[in-house]
């Protein structure tokens, strides 16, 4: 049952990314290019996602526990440290170079462009490196 729910959530997530144009790097780079022909699409995607999540989380987190798990697994760290901010800066730099962040890059894999696969492999290597 938990697998089915995760599959449905992943499907909805991937469909949302694609419908919002986020699996096309040129749309994302167009958003980051504020000095050029600025593309506001990402603002609508993020706005829609935040509106639903903001309200939905408040309703869901009133519950004592999730439907299929013993407890809510929420992050507990609160430090604004160099690891967080430095990591975010590195991520942003890579995002600006390719126009891919992790979700869209993975969702774009089945389109079978060599560049997407190379990006995802390098991203996995980076993730593994960060875990060492």
């Amino acid at each position: 049952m938990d697998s089915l729910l995760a599959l449905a959530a992943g499907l909805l997530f991937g469909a949302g990314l694609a419908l919002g144009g986020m699996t096309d790097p040129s749309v994302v780079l167009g958003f980051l290019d504020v000095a050029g022909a600025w593309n506001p699409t990402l603002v609508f995607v993020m706005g829609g996602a935040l509106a639903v999540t903001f309200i939905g989380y408040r309703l869901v987190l009133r519950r004592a526990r999730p439907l299929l798990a013993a407890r809510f697994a929420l992050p507990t760290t609160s430090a604004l440290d160099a690891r967080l901010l430095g990591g975010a800066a590195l991520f942003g730099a890579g995002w600006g170079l390719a126009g891919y962040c992790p979700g869209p890059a993975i969702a774009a894999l089945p389109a079978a462009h060599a560049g997407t696969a190379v990006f995802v492999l390098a991203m996995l290597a980076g993730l593994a490196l960060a875990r060492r």
Partner: protein
Amino acid sequence: MFSPTWLQALLGGAFIGGAAVLLMLGLGRIAGISGIVANLLPPVAPDSRWRAFFVAGLLAGPALVGLVLGRDPVGVPAAGLPVLIVAGLLVGLGTGLGSGCTSGHGVCGIARLSPRSIAATCVFMLAGGMVVFITRHVVG
């Protein structure tokens, strides 16, 4: 290039939010893609079956949209292979060190009003904007 209308973009965002809420309601988990994927790398976290199924859904999502719209929404890579390798390493390393990406920090974290996520989102947007400015308007 796939240029969604603002309504399609808003709806796509609502789908992403719906997925995040569904995952929290069902499994009590944050829908952060970098974290979900990182925990599928060896050593694989013991409770990772749901992560594999989430990724399977993520991979199938765009095809579903393509079927409904009658056109392929997935664009082509926007850089050459050397740049994509460097970018992928930076994205993996950065989201690993920074504990999240556009989904975990930018959507789920901001929706929880997490100061860490708000700070991280400001930093990665600023960094991304600076890099695009340099590649397109300084050296481009």
